[in-house]
């Protein structure tokens, strides 16, 4: 096994462990920290797949900006550990959810087992900022411009929804 494959397996195992931490830890702050770890490890996988630009964006935008937003909200709401669940069928439902998740993962893995996919050599600048930007500003120009409108609407919506008091009478 090559060095790169061993590194991939190591990172993959760590990623799955951190993702399980997100789902299993009762404290929301620690779940968020586990999610930051998962996103960092995924950035390493992106580098192994020669997506350098996206790996940088993953760390800056996801692990940086979005997760800081999550942590701000968790701390703003002053959340403690989750209450233990109530209800008669909780263990049955929880078991069924895990069973469904395992079935989904096994099913997807079996689906991929026999497939053959490419993966030959790529040009030296593959995944660089220049290569991604060229595609982004030529082939995907219209979606890129629409994205700016989406972000504007999201900013206005977030401010409107989260502000303290709204005017009682609409214009």
């Amino acid at each position, binding site marked *: 096994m090559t060095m790169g*494959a061993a590194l*991939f397996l190591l990172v993959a195992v760590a990623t*799955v462990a951190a*993702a399980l931490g*997100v*789902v299993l830890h009762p404290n929301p702050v620690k*779940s968020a920290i586990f*999610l930051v770890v*998962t*996103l960092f490890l*995924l950035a390493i*996988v992106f580098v192994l*797949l*020669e*997506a350098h*630009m*996206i790996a940088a*964006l*993953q760390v800056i935008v*996801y692990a940086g900006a*979005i997760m800081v*937003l*999550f942590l701000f*909200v968790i701390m703003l*709401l002053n*959340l403690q550990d*989750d*209450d233990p669940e*109530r*209800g008669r069928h909780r263990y049955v439902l*929880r078991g069924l*959810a*895990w069973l*469904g*998740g395992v079935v*989904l*993962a096994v099913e*997807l*893995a079996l689906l*991929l087992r026999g*497939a053959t*996919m*490419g*993966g*030959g*050599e*790529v040009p030296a600048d593959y995944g660089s900022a220049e*290569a991604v930007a060229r*595609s982004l500003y030529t*082939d*995907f120009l219209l979606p890129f411009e629409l*994205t700016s409108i*989406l*972000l504007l*609407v*999201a*900013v206005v919506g*977030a401010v*409107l*929804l989260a502000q303290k008091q709204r005017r009682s009478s609409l214009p």
Partner: protein
Amino acid sequence: MIVPTQWVLMLSAVLFAIGVVGVLVRRNVIVIFMAIELMLNAVNLSFIALARARGAVDGQVVVFFVMTVAAAEAAVGLAIIIASFRNRSTVNVDELALLRG
């Protein structure tokens, strides 16, 4: 390529399944939101892997858009959570059952 594409796609499948389970078993709406982010990242990973397998950067551009939409979704979603917490003082989805008929 340093590893077969299937390996990466299987990692993506496992992460997606963990995200699905997270949405199903957790009752805290913020943790459910984090599990959704996990699923988005699993799909991003398969986009990157298949872009590498095809030797084209288009998949990476799609990941860029997914990140943008995820950022917008996180901002709006967390604002909704804050607004609902202000009114109901809870983030437990079992108690946020106003839309149940």
